[in-house]
């Protein structure tokens, strides 16, 4: 598939909103879905649906196979060592909560330190905050510099003999900075500290090889990878899945249940309680195929081109201030306009059919640091092109006109 005519694969991008074509620049929030994904879900319900893993009838066999095939696809896509390392969750948030809860319960004591960064999404802070409350753990935030990056040295400075977890984002959903994960992991390894990577923004936009990254955990939101809502993925090294206790309890994740005691099977079963997101997981297999068809390298190159075009064009506008200038960056452009609040920008842009996000983007720590409660954010996905950026800039001019700036 050629990335230049990929837009046509997305039904919603053919829609008009109040007579205007949709310019969707909110993919970091949630990406739109290609036809193949949507149709796969329908087909699954129409021809193949049944609960998986439990019944022996043909439908159950088919559904189970489709589901587990997706696990294999994901394993291959991430280059995980084994399928036991791929756990399906409901979103990335749940994936991080799972680790914070299971790892925390077993390994975190009063006074132990968890190392985050000032760039983290609330999903990678609140679950650790719970451990702070329950266990008396300490949370430290590695500094984010003026460019909106986190330097590995600023992480190094904060490591002590009490550090029990380093949990960092792969790609900031505000500044777009790509963090030096490999360096962080190498550093952590010398101190035997596990590393969790919040891969929400990394997975849809960067080539992934968890063995090369070397991290212990990697959390993914499928809906940001052009997949269905309701599914996330936790990659966890087998070393951890073997020893971490289960997270939620229920059907499917047990071995033997007696009145006095319960035993549990191995991963991933141990971590997948109750009826899973069958149709969503099956649908997600088409997202991976879609990405692989285009090629993640091509996606990166394309998005980089559009992002650079956007930054350059926005910079030419004197009223626009771009938030963060990381050297190594993904396809996210946060900005403010002098004299216009981001919510007003978003509303006016929307009237021109341009969908962006305004707010703190679930990163209040960062926004407090830069002293701005809210920013506007245009995030670029597989389907965006230079025309979309031109429309964005035009709509920004319209903002300025309305606000007489």
């Amino acid at each position, binding site marked *: 598939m050629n990335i230049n005519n990929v837009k046509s694969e997305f039904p919603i991008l053919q829609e008009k909103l109040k007579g205007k074509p949709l310019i969707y620049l909110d993919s970091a929030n949630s990406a739109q879905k290609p036809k193949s994904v949507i149709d796969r879900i329908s087909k699954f319900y129409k021809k193949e649906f049944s609960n998986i893993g439990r019944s022996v009838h043909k439908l159950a066999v088919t559904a189970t196979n489709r589901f587990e095939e997706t696990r294999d696809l994901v394993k291959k896509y991430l280059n995980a060592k084994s399928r036991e390392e791929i756990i399906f969750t409901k979103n990335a948030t749940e994936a991080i909560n799972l680790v914070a809860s299971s790892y925390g319960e077993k390994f975190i004591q009063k006074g132990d330190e968890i190392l985050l960064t000032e760039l983290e999404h609330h999903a990678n802070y609140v679950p650790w905050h719970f451990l702070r409350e329950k266990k008396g753990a300490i949370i430290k935030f590695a500094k984010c510099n003026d460019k909106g990056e986190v330097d590995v040295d600023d992480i190094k400075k904060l490591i002590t003999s009490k550090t029990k977890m380093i949990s960092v984002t792969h790609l900031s959903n505000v500044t777009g900075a790509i963090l030096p994960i490999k360096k962080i992991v190498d550093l952590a390894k010398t101190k035997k500290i596990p590393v969790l990577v919040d891969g929400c923004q990394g997975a849809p936009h960067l080539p992934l090889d968890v063995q090369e990254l070397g991290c212990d955990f990697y959390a993914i939101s499928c809906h940001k990878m052009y997949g269905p809502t309701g599914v996330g993925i936790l990659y966890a090294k087998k070393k951890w899945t073997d020893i971490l206790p289960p997270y939620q309890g229920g059907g499917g994740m047990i071995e033997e249940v007696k009145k006095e005691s319960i035993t549990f099977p191995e991963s991933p079963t141990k971590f997948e309680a109750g009826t899973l997101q069958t149709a969503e997981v099956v649908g997600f297999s088409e997202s991976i195929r879609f990405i692989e068809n285009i090629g993640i390298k091509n996606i990166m190159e394309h998005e980089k081109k559009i992002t650079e075009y956007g930054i350059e064009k926005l910079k030419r506008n004197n009223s626009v201030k771009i938030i963060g200038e990381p050297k190594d960056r993904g396809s996210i452009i946060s900005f403010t306009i002098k004299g216009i609040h981001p*919510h*007003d920008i978003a509303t006016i842009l929307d009237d021109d059919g341009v969908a962006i996000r305004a707010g703190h983007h679930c990163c209040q720590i960062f926004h407090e640091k830069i002293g701005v*409660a809210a920013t506007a954010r245009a995030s670029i996905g597989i389907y965006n092109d230079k025309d979309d950026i031109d429309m964005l800039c035009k709509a920004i001019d319209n903002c300025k006109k309305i606000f007489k700036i």
Partner: protein
Amino acid sequence: MELKELYQEIILDHGKNPRNKGRCNEFNSDAEGYNPLCGDKVHIYLRVGKYKEVQDSSFEGEGCAISLASASILTEIIKGKDYNVAKKIIEDFLNMIKNETKITINSLSDEQKTTLMSLSGVKQFPMRVKCATMAWHTFNTALEGKK
């Protein structure tokens, strides 16, 4: 068209040059409002007299044009009003935003009514309603503190 109803001259004016910003002198009641969705904050200050009349009102806060204009217009209009009248104006305003009813209260001048009505454009923008109403809810809380 709708956009123009939202960003009327009067709103833009109040948004850019909000009246009654800061803490009013000798305030004796205050309350804070917060919108977790966008991080906007408002802090309302009141000086309520012994007959429960609102002698002075002001606000501090950051936010979008709508929320600043709303706080500005609110503090401007209610200043000097009796407790009961103030309560009624707030109720009327919130009803107008929620149920599309009209402002009926007599104690407002036509100009004041027009000013209030200018905020009703927000009804077409559900995600922005809270921007327009937060200051009013917060004001109400501050007022109740003096009941």
